[in-house]
């Protein structure tokens, strides 16, 4: 079992010891070429992320948020610049950068347990015994409160439950960075709030490093240590980075009366709706 609370403190201690970021996105450009035309999606994006940090990337749709996440995941390659994870270049996908996909992406022919177990077997097949892998699979399902539905197939559970299993699968890989691509985007408001709380608790307990794509201002402020705001594409850049200095643990109801909350919310809203208003793409 994992001891509560301490990993986060431990993470900060290590950070000061080594004094270098876990993830460094260094002057990254990304352009897609289709036929004869080249579309520049990201231009000169630089960002460093420390261990244990929860970073949200927010921006209007089509601004290249997902492209940036896919670059970190290694699912697509940078056109220029580089991405370093613990001083190693990222150029292929791997379980050290587990992804929680927007539409859960569970394999529909496997049960919830088997979906997580597939990841556990792949990542820990050589290092953990069969019994340990079973235990680890169940531990992660329990972490997202899905132990009771372990034998259900994705078609038999609700959207929120599917996303929980998706999160369990990603957590079970023990990633160095957990990447979440609009993880709550497809859920209704009540389920979303419930799942945000779950993710917040897990983050407090395990001290994961998280990068989350979102288009929801409240979600970004509630969950993040830093909010990275992107300008509109094409050739999107990082417009501004906001430090959210709200005390943790955070509570969505009490947060409204915490002084910094409204200011943070206002800063993001101002960025999105005044300075970088969404322009409908002209085809």
């Amino acid at each position, binding site marked *: 079992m994992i001891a509560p609370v301490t990993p986060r403190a431990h993470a900060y201690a290590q950070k000061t010891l080594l004094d270098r970021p876990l993830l460094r996105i260094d002057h990254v450009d990304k352009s897609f070429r289709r036929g004869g035309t080249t579309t520049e999606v990201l231009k000169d994006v630089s960002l460093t992320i420390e261990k244990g940090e929860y970073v949200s990337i927010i921006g209007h749709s089509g601004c290249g948020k997902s492209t940036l996440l896919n670059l970190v*995941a*290694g*699912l697509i390659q940078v056109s220029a610049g580089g991405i370093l994870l613990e001083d190693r270049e990222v150029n*292929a*996908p*791997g*379980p050290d*950068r*587990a*992804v929680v*996909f927007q*539409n859960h*992406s569970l*394999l*529909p*022919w*496997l049960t919830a347990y088997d979906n997580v177990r*597939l*990841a556990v077997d*792949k*990542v820990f097949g050589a290092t953990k015994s069969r019994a340990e892998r079973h235990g680890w699979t169940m531990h992660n399902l329990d972490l997202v409160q899905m132990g009771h539905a372990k034998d259900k*197939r*994705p*078609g*038999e559970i609700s959207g929120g439950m599917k996303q929980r299993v998706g999160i369990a699968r990603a957590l079970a*890989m023990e990633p160095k960075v957990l990447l979440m691509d609009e993880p709550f985007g497809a859920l209704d408001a009540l389920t979303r709030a419930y799942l945000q709380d779950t993710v917040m608790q897990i983050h407090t307990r395990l001290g994961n490093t998280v990068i989350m794509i979102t288009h929801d201002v409240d979600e970004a402020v509630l969950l993040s240590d830093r909010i990275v705001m992107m300008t509109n594409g094409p050739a999107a850049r990082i417009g501004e980075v906001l430090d959210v200095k709200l005390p943790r643990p955070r509570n969505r109801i009490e947060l409204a009366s915490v002084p910094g909350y409204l200011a943070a919310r206002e800063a993001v809203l101002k960025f999105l709706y005044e300075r970088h208003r969404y322009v409908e793409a002209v085809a």
Partner: protein
Amino acid sequence: MTASNLRVFEMHAGTPSTSAAAATAIENRVVRVSPLKPNSRTARAATAVARGIVNAIPALIVVVLLLLVWEMASSGPKASLPSPSKIWLEARDLITQPFFVYGPQDIGLGWRILTSLQRVAIGFALAAMVGIMLGALVGQSQWAMRGLDPLFQVLRTVPPLAWLPISLAAFRDSVPSAIFVIFITSIWPIIINTAVGIRNIPQDYRNVAAVLQLNSYEFFRRIMVPAAAPYIFTGLRIGVGLSWLAIVAAEMLTGGVGIGFFIWDAWNSSKLPDIVVALVYIGLVGFCLDRAIAALGGLATRGTAAA
């Protein structure tokens, strides 16, 4: 519900017992309901059977009507085809005893069907294995697709029997030739459907495989086959139908003990009633083959459909 609860309370109102007793009484009422469950299950099974019979009635009526029309049409003295009653009189042993053995060439239709089925099984199993592999290759690789697809598109239009002379020349024996004809007939829909199924695997599943770093064997087994299974089984179903078509034709030409040769033999000895009985057998077996593959597919793709 509330009304019945109230009645329980009324019943105990006169006695010294408290609400706890009333609660037990309610529990008893609930428990007493439960033995009905197995009964309802058998009742459900009975209604399912009844519904099956009701569904079969129109088909039976149509068959009876057709037999009547046929009987009337072929009962005249100049009729060229045998009537149902004549078939029953002349070929009754073939209908009622599918598994008799009177001599090396005088055996029941059941045995002949089994011989043909054995050839189909070998040819179709080979076609399924090779077809799924080739389909996976063509579906996965753009280059294999460009290189092989034109060839497949041309070869799949060649009629089954056109392959027979060349396979007889190559194998110098009728049995492997017949099996080859089955193979070459049923492989095309399997290849093409598998390839389409694999090309349609959602990018999400490919991303999951990439993040998990599945190797090509694991990707084939854990993602490709289950994701493409509905398409693969469609291909298999078309393939088994085609191979059953081809075996009858191939056996007519190659001889031996199969059902195809039986028809040819009956034609040569002018036993038309035997041919009609053989046709019914072939139709029923073909139907069963199709349903068997469909059922297998339904079983194998249980989870995939509900995504």
